[in-house]
């Protein structure tokens, strides 16, 4: 009878420690999985914003392509970007530079987009995306 008490206690301790182990494993699992899930949301947002920036660069280049000189092309590209409506995620899209190449008959427009992450993380709460697009010059008179 004297020996049975310590044995029961040992069994109880063993059972307790096993169930605690599962809880701790689950907690550590969540600590790793939740940040990965949140980072995935940020990555998807960034990819979507990059795609949007490419489209704005295309639109700006197309607007610039119908002009006859560089200053007018730059002005038109800037005006085309005023159609953008800022959101909480994409705060701005601005023209970076215009290259008006009359020799090759094409215009290149670069845009810069400020992207705020929906789930801000340390050192990764704001990104600057750049895109450029080339369009043919449509307003250049044909060679005689």
């Amino acid at each position, binding site marked *: 009878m004297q020996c049975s008490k310590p044995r029961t206690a040992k069994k109880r301790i063993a059972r307790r420690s096993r169930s605690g182990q599962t809880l701790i494993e689950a907690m550590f699992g969540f600590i790793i999985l939740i940040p990965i899930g949140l980072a995935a949301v940020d990555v998807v947002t960034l990819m979507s914003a990059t795609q949007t920036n490419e489209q704005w660069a295309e639109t700006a280049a197309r607007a610039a392509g119908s002009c006859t000189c560089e200053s007018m092309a730059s002005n038109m590209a800037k005006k085309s970007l005023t*159609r953008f409506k800022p959101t909480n995620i994409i705060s701005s899209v601005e023209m970076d530079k215009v290259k008006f190449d009359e020799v090759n008959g094409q215009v290149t427009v670069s845009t810069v987009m400020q992207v705020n992450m929906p789930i801000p993380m340390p050192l990764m709460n704001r990104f600057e995306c750049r895109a450029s697009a080339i369009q043919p010059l449509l307003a250049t008179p044909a060679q005689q």
Partner: protein
Amino acid sequence: MSEFGPALFFIFIFAVFPVVDIIALSFGYMSCSSLNDIQLREAAKIPKSLATNAKGPVMMTIPDKWMQTVLGGVSGLAEQPVTKVDYDASTGNMYVTVSTTVKVRPFLTIPFFYKVPGLGEPASFTVSNSRVLENPMYAVQ
């Protein structure tokens, strides 16, 4: 083992099926975006009278043909896409804007999410995009 049945029930009803529905909803949005892109490309190179015609290529022919494709068929549309075409010359160039509204049925209708768009009832979303009109004169033709 007695909790195995209820656990499976909760996992499927509140985790697996909603995730499947959200994936199907994303596919529906992607296919709607694809339809809008095709319509916009067409609207940018045809006269306004044709682009805004209810039986024209932008508002009828393209959505009809698109619904017969795999992309249109699998996306599970509840009704015909609704298209709106607008013109805007406020920023120097003439822009055409095409907005496409679709209603997508949930892939699996989950009874517990009654009235929740995308899970218990069809979800409606609009994709809108603009492009410079190829010939500015088309805006008045």
